[in-house]
């Protein structure tokens, strides 16, 4: 006889429900309002402040994202805003969801509350209060000690030891060495096992890059989070909460934007043709093109004019050494670390083999996720259909890796310059290196005529490329430690 306790997670938040059934009103809420109970009102319309809510929640959405939302709701008790935004790309969402579910809620070497705590640590590095707040709740629900949430100094030493590589992986992954791994694994009271460490590393990189996504897409706080709700009635003037209004392409610069798309299409066509003829490029030039792109990324550094917004203390307490941030590793006068040659340590051959040995299930899922995101295409560009976008996707992917110092021998980095305009480069660099500084202006300024779903698509590429880059550095360090 099989007897199973099908454990019902009763903590379904109304926010999730309402998001999922946009047309319906919870009857119980009404009743409560009649009884004089204050009902919080959601601030910000829709799951993202960059994307108008109509774009995301189309009436009669296709069944694919719908089913995934049901699954997410049933297994975690809510459909959070990230999931809803990702719903624009259901194929990706399904593997993203599976991976995250495995990392957080399935069998693994780490206890559940620690996984959430690691997520908090990772997200806090990018001052992502959305993820930090979210996982603080999950941490408590998993039975974590509330004391730990007072800050990193209250967490056990073992987790605090992780802080060093958390810091490095978040901002300058190329600095990670086998000594870091050694320090964590050396036997002692607070030592990590290799399997635990792998899970922690995957969690860290996952949440670093997810923070990029949250900022890159302007994901709104959940209704139950701080800053996600208010009790005062909506003032009629507060238009800023409806991003749809000012977002549309103005008629004045509409033409420019149209031209942008045309120019891009033209360039892609040109490059495709050139590829067959252009043989005059010397190897040396190829060499310098990468270096150029790398150094040029210096100039692309986002303007620092945005006032350093003050951090909520509940995020800051998880961060030690907050000054440590992405630094262009090509500054003059410094010994540049050797370029990471992509062919010498690839995810498909080496990364996967290692991870699959130490934490089997996740290797498979990550592999699938990388594959799906790299090959995801709808063959559209803005209003054009039937376009082969592989070149564009590869340019974005390789540019992200280039920003983190990974070089592909078989890629001509001149293409990046041709295909990615400056505003896009700024956006990419910001989202991947200083996600907390991403603004709506940046989001709207690049590729103005592109659909929102396409911009989310770009964000997916940024997310995964960044995760893979950091993971490759970390795994290479582990490989070096093991040999």
């Amino acid at each position, binding site marked *: *006889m*099989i*007897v*199973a*306790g*099908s*454990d*019902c997670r009763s903590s379904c938040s109304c926010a999730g429900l309402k998001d999922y059934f946009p047309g319906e009103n919870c009857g119980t809420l009404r009743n409560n309002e009649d009884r004089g109970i204050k009902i919080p009102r959601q601030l910000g319309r829709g799951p993202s402040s960059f994307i108008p809510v109509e774009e995301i929640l189309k009436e009669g959405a296709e069944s694919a994202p719908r*089913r995934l939302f*049901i*699954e997410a709701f*049933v*297994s975690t008790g809510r459909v959070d805003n990230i999931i809803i935004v990702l719903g624009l790309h259901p194929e990706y969402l399904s593997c993203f969801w599976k991976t995250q*579910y495995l990392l957080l809620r*399935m*069998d693994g070497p780490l206890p*559940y509350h620690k996984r959430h705590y690691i997520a908090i640590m990772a997200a806090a590095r990018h001052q992502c209060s959305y993820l930090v707040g979210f996982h603080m709740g999950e941490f408590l629900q*998993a*039975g974590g000690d509330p004391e730990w949430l007072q800050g990193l100094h209250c967490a056990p030493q073992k987790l605090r030891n992780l802080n060093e590589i958390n810091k490095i992986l978040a901002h300058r992954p190329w600095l990670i060495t086998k000594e870091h791994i050694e320090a964590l694994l050396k036997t002692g009271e607070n030592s990590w096992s290799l399997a635990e460490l792998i899970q922690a590393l995957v969690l860290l990189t996952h949440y670093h890059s997810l923070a990029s996504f949250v900022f890159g897409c302007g994901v709104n706080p959940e209704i139950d989070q701080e800053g996600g709700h208010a009790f005062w009635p909506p003032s009629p003037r507060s238009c800023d909460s409806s991003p749809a209004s000012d977002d549309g392409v103005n008629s004045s610069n509409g033409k420019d934007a149209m031209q942008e798309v045309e120019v891009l299409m033209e360039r892609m066509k040109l490059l495709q043709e050139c*590829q067959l003829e252009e*043989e005059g490029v*010397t*190897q*040396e030039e*190829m*060499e310098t093109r990468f270096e150029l792109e790398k150094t040029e990324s210096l100039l692309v550094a986002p303007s620092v004019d945005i006032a350093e917004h003050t951090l909520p203390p509940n995020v800051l307490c998880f961060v030690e050494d907050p000054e440590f941030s992405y630094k262009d590793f090509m500054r003059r006068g410094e010994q540049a670390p050797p370029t990471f*040659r992509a*062919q*010498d340590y690839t995810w*498909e*051959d*080496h990364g*996967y*083999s*290692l991870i*699959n*040995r130490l934490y089997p299930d996740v290797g498979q899922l990550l*592999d699938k996720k990388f594959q799906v995101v790299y090959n995801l295409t709808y063959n559209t560009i803005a209003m054009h259909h039937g376009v082969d976008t592989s070149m564009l996707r590869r340019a974005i992917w390789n540019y992200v890796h280039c920003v983190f110092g990974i070089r592909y*021998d*078989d890629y001509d980095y001149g293409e990046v310059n041709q295909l990615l305009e400056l505003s896009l480069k700024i956006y990419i660099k910001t989202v991947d290196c200083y996600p907390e500084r991403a603004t709506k202006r940046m989001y709207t300024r690049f590729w103005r005529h592109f659909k929102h779903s396409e911009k989310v698509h770009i964000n997916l590429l940024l997310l995964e490329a960044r995760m893979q880059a950091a993971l490759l550095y970390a795994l290479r360090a582990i*490989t070096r430690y*093991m*040999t």
Partner: protein
Amino acid sequence: MEKMARVTTALGGNTITGRTMFCHLDAPANAISVCRDAAQVVVAGRNIFKIYSIEEDQFLEKLNLRFGRKPSLNFSCADVVWHQMDENLLATAATNGVVVTWNLGKPSRNKQDQLFTEHKRTVNKVCFHPTEVYMLLSGSQDGYMKCFDLRKKDSVSTFSGQSESVRDVQFSIRDYFTFAATFENGNVQLWDIRRPDRYERMFTAHNGPVFCCDWHPEDRGWLATGGRDKMVKVWDMNTNRAKEIYCVQTIASVARVKWRPECKHHIATCSMMVDHNIYVWDVRRPYIPSAMFEEHKDVTTGIVWRHLHDPYFLLSGSKDSTLYQHIFKDASQPIDRANPEGLCYSLFGDLAFAAKESLISSDSNRKPYIGDRRHPIFFKRKLDPTEQFEYISSSSALSVFETDIESGSMDWFVRTAKQYALAGRPLAELCDHNAKVAKELDRNQVAQTWTMIRIIYSSPGTMPSTNLNHSMGKSSSNLPLMNSFNLKDIAPGIGNESRLERNKGENRVENILMDSSSSLINNDENEETEGSDVPADYFLGDVEGDEDELYMMDHENPHAEEQEYILPQEAFPLRHEIVDNPSALDHLQDKADSPHVSGNEAETVSLTPVESFSLISISHSLYDNRLPPDFFNPIVRDMLLFYAEQGDVQMAASVLIVLGDRIRREIDEQTQEHWYTSYVDLLQRFQLWNISNEVIKLSTCRTINCLNQASTTLHINCSNCKRPMSNKGWICDRCRQCASMCAVCHHVVKGLFVWCQGCSHGGHLQHIMKWLETSSHCPTGCGHLCEYT
């Protein structure tokens, strides 16, 4: 390597001699290839491209093909191949997608011959045609394979693998026109060189990328492939559908495979990551490599047999920047280290023994074992008589010896496990209950132990006198008493072990022989106990010679209590709870401080430390006033060790649970863990799942506690469409219905859910139970005769 073999083989004219040797390269190697005459080897990598000649004792650098101050990426080689027809001709695949050919016959320093820049991505593999001088094939990451004619500037034909990256290409050795290509998505394709439009055949060989393949040098139909899924597979391509004939499971993703020359079934492999060794497998024996080379300190990236027809020399290059020549004689053979015999006990004491047949048959005149009731079973495998190399004896025999049914019965174990109470009541009650259980099963020694534990750890005032009269009187043999001492000797307040130890030594004088009628041991110093009105004296003897009695079952007495049908207790909390293990200290303190009333009541407790037949007599009155229960911890510990040693791990684990923190600190974690795992293992083999779960839950050992938090996944089918439910929760993603409906009341089941594994229908536990009282068919009316085990 302790001794280096020197091997000489004559191969039609030229001889190959050498030994195991290596040389340092300046940089990690990516690939190696040998010249046709087996005298030179080329090593290629990102920062190295050199030719070494293989001398008898060393490698000699002959030529550095990489030169210039800032060598271009064209020198960064992913693969290299030496033409087997023309010893001046080499080809390399560069990481930037260029295919380069080299002509060593050129007089200038730059030997570069042709440059093909047709591939857009990294070229993973290049391959010369085995018989055609000018034909070169390449496979690239961009999904194309290209065939070049070295007399022309451009490729002759391009083969498209449908945008999947090509990992390896190999010309068939026997079929002039055929080549095989392996892909990152797990496919293998066969192409005809004359038909670039479509592959001849395709099949999925591996899960994940296929990194390499190799045609068998003799058998035209055999293709070996190795993949990221850690498998080496041998395919028979002669039939219409590629048939997998052998499969070898390795421990890491397979980077290269190379058939061993002159040995039909041998294949050499090396791995992509983690594992640095080179293995030579006999594909018919997939579980253990027949030879192993362990010299490299980083992953091996290239392996090649030195000569086409010589099976004894293997060359290898590695990421650790060394080039090795391995001699087969120096290989380590894991088979030598493997234990060829297997031995296993069954639950009921049957013994199975498997060994090489030769071992058993040579011992034909041995006396047949009394318990050997079943005829030995033999497994044999016919060997290929034509096999010329290393005869492997793989026939072995298995014999099973049954034990006596009576003596081997484990009834007592099951019953004890079922009836023991381990938690939920005060200690005294638990001990009493367990003592009673043991008594009913005629396990007097165990019963005694439980009673004594109670006396030691709980207030004796409440002790019912009936329980005190057990003794080992049944024992017919005389128990020699080696060591006896009286605790009254010890000055009050001193309870440390060293003192105890010393006392043991001092009091070793008395050797008391005890006959079966004696119920009281009195030393000279024991006078104070005489005044006691309760004749409560215990002693425990080690009855080693008398095991039968100890384990004899009471077959006449049926169970006192019928097992009620109750819901099994959930052995794990539905949510993770934080279990606090309150410190035992204050608890013990309470015990020690509590005043004791029955001063004149005296008991003598005797315990047997494990190493000898010793008795410890304790006067209870003294213990009352002075001795905290901690005092006895070493003794109890020894007692537990004794039981565990005897094979009664049940007792050890049960006492451990019942006493909990009182004794936990006395025994080191590892031992505890060992006991728990053994007990849990035994329970599970007897299918006492609930009890084993309870034990896991109650154990204070962290590693044990974790056991029931692992693999808590249940795979279920939807009750509507009967297909597996892939997603979480209750809603089937295929038929969009709630899968966990009760078949009786048609409501959604939350909480305990029971279902039939045959038809996937089920419902509330109570409803189904009620239903099954009246009918044995499924309540949904699906016609299935439901079985609930």
